[in-house]
C-alpha cells in the first residue's frame, strides 16, 4: 500500500470505528436524538405565543437557530471530545502510537463529525417540517448549503483547539470544552439577534463563527438570498476556517508534545 493509500485507509478506519460506536450505543443515540427533536420543537413552539402575523417567520427563525446549533455543536463536541473519549476508553496510547500522521487521525474524527452532524440534523429537520408544516417556498437552499459548508471549517478549527484541553489536563480540560461551548451558545445569536445582548458581552459575538453562520443561513432561508448575495459572509467564514484549522492543528501538535513530555497521555495521567 502506498503511503497516501495507507493514510487514507487509516482515516477511514477512524470514521468506521466511530460509526461502530454509534451502533453499539444505539439506545443512547436514539434517546439523545429524541431529546434534540423535542428540544427543537419546544423552542419553535415559543413562536405560538406571538401574534399570528409574526408566527411563521419566528418559527423558521428559531428553527434555523436550533438546527444550526445542533449541527455546529455536534461538530465542536465530537472533535473536542475525541481525546477525552479515547482517554476514558483507555485507547489513547494505542491510537497515538500508530504510524499515521496526526492530521490523518484528526481528519478522520472531523469527517465523522460532519457526516454524523448532517445525518442528525436531517432527522430533526424532517421531524420539525412534519410537525409545523412550514412553508419554505422563498428559501434559497443552495445558499444555505454553501453557508453550512463554509461554517464547518471554523467549527472544526475550534473543535481542534478544544480537543487540546483534555490533553493538558484530564478532567479540567473536558470541563473547559463545555464552558467554551456554552459561551458560543450565549453570544452567537442562536435564538435572538445579537443586538439584545448587553454591551459588555456583545463584542464576543463578532468573534464567534456561529454568529455569521446564523446570519447568513437566516438570510438564505427567510429572505431567499442566493449564493451571490451571501458570498461576502461565506468568504469570511471560509477565511476564518483557513486560520482556525491550521491553528488548531498546530496547537494540537504542541499539546501532544507537551503531553509526551509530561506523561499525560496515559489514562490515569
Amino acid at each position, binding site marked *: 500500500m502506498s503511503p497516501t*493509500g495507507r493514510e487514507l485507509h*487509516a482515516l477511514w478506519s*477512524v470514521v468506521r470505528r466511530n460509526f461502530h460506536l454509534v451502533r453499539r450505543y444505539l439506545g443512547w443515540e436514539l434517546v439523545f436524538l429524541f431529546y434534540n427533536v423535542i428540544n427543537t420543537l419546544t423552542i419553535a413552539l415559543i413562536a405560538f405565543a406571538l401574534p399570528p402575523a409574526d408566527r411563521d417567520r419566528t418559527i423558521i427563525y428559531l428553527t434555523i437557530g436550533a438546527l444550526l446549533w445542533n449541527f455546529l455543536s455536534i461538530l465542536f463536541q465530537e472533535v473536542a471530545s475525541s481525546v477525552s473519549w479515547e482517554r476514558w476508553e483507555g*485507547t489513547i496510547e*494505542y491510537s497515538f502510537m500508530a504510524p499515521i500522521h496526526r492530521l490523518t487521525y484528526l481528519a478522520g474524527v472531523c469527517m465523522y463529525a460532519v457526516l454524523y452532524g448532517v445525518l442528525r440534523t436531517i432527522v430533526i429537520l424532517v421531524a420539525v417540517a412534519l410537525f409545523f408544516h412550514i412553508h419554505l417556498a422563498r428559501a434559497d437552499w443552495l445558499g444555505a448549503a454553501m453557508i453550512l459548508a463554509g461554517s464547518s471549517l471554523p467549527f472544526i478549527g475550534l473543535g481542534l483547539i478544544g480537543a487540546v484541553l483534555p490533553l493538558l489536563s484530564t478532567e479540567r480540560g473536558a470541563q473547559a470544552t463545555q464552558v467554551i461551548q456554552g459561551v458560543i451558545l450565549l453570544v452567537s445569536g442562536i435564538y435572538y439577534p445579537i443586538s439584545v445582548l448587553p454591551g459588555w458581552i456583545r463584542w464576543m459575538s463578532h468573534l464567534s463563527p456561529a454568529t455569521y453562520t446564523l446570519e447568513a443561513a437566516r438570510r438564505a432561508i427567510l429572505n431567499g438570498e442566493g449564493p451571490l448575495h451571501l458570498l461576502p459572509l461565506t468568504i469570511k467564514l471560509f477565511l476564518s476556517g483557513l486560520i482556525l484549522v491550521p491553528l488548531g492543528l498546530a496547537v494540537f501538535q504542541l499539546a501532544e508534545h507537551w503531553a*509526551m513530555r509530561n506523561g499525560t497521555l*496515559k489514562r490515569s495521567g
Partner: protein
Amino acid sequence: MDEGSVSPNAVAVEGQGLWKGFSTKKWVGTKRQVTRSYALKGVDLAVKRREILGILGPNGSGKSTLIRLMATLLIPDQGWLKVFGLDVIRDRQRVRRLINRVSVEASFFKKLTARENLAYAAGLYGVSNAKAQVEATRILASLGLQRDKLEVPLETLSRGQQQKIAIARALLTSPTLMLLDEPTTGLDPTSRRDVQEFVLNVRREHDSTMVLCTHDMAEAERLCDRIAIIHEGRIIAVGTPADLIASYASGGGLEDAFFHITGLDQERLRAEAEGDG
C-alpha cells in the same frame, strides 16, 4: 532505507543516559507545590536483534516508563534512545511502523466487538480488514480462543481473553519489535501458559525482537534470553538467567538472585505482586 525495513546490522534497541521524571502538583495552603520524582535515573540498555530481553523489577521501578519511551509515547528528559538505529524522537513515525505494544491493561473500545476493534487497529497500520480478520482468527485459534468470541463486545470477555485479543492485535501489524508490558498479569495459569507458549512460537517463526516487562520470575526465566533488573529507576544487573543465578544466588533460583541484587524484602514483594494480579 525503506520506511518499514530495518538495517540487518542494527541493534534492536539502544539507549544511553535515559532520565525521565514526572511532576506532581498540589496546593499546600495558598502555595502550589511541585514535586518532581524520577522514574528513570540514567538508564543504559541494548537489546540485540531477535532477542527476548526481560525487564524485571518491583512496582514503580520504571519498567513501564522505559517501555513507553520505546513506544514513542514519552520524551526522555535526558539521554537518547534508538530503535533499529532510528531515534525515537526525530524518527518517531518510522519507529512506530516497526513496533507494537501489549500493555498490562487491555486498551480496547469495550463496547465494540473484537472484530471491530481489530478492524480499527489494522486500519491504523495499513493492513486490510479482510487480511486482518483472517490473520486474527488464526492467531486467536492458536491461543485457544474460540471463533465466536470475536463477535461479542470486549466487555463481556474475561481479562485473559481480552489479553489474547490484545496480543493478536499487536501481531497483525507484524512488528519487528514487540513491547510486552506485563502481558500475563492477572491471567489464570492456563491462559498464562498459552500466552507464554505463543510468545516463544512467535520468536521461533518471525523475525521479531521482544522486550518483556514482568515481575513473574518463572516467566522471565522461561521466556527471556537475557534479563535486566531495574530498581528505583536504574538497571542494576543484566545477564542471562543462568548468569544471574550463578553470580548472585548460587544453588538458588532467579528469585533469590533478584532479591539479592535489589536488596528487597521477599515477603513484601510477593504481597505486591499478588495484589497486582
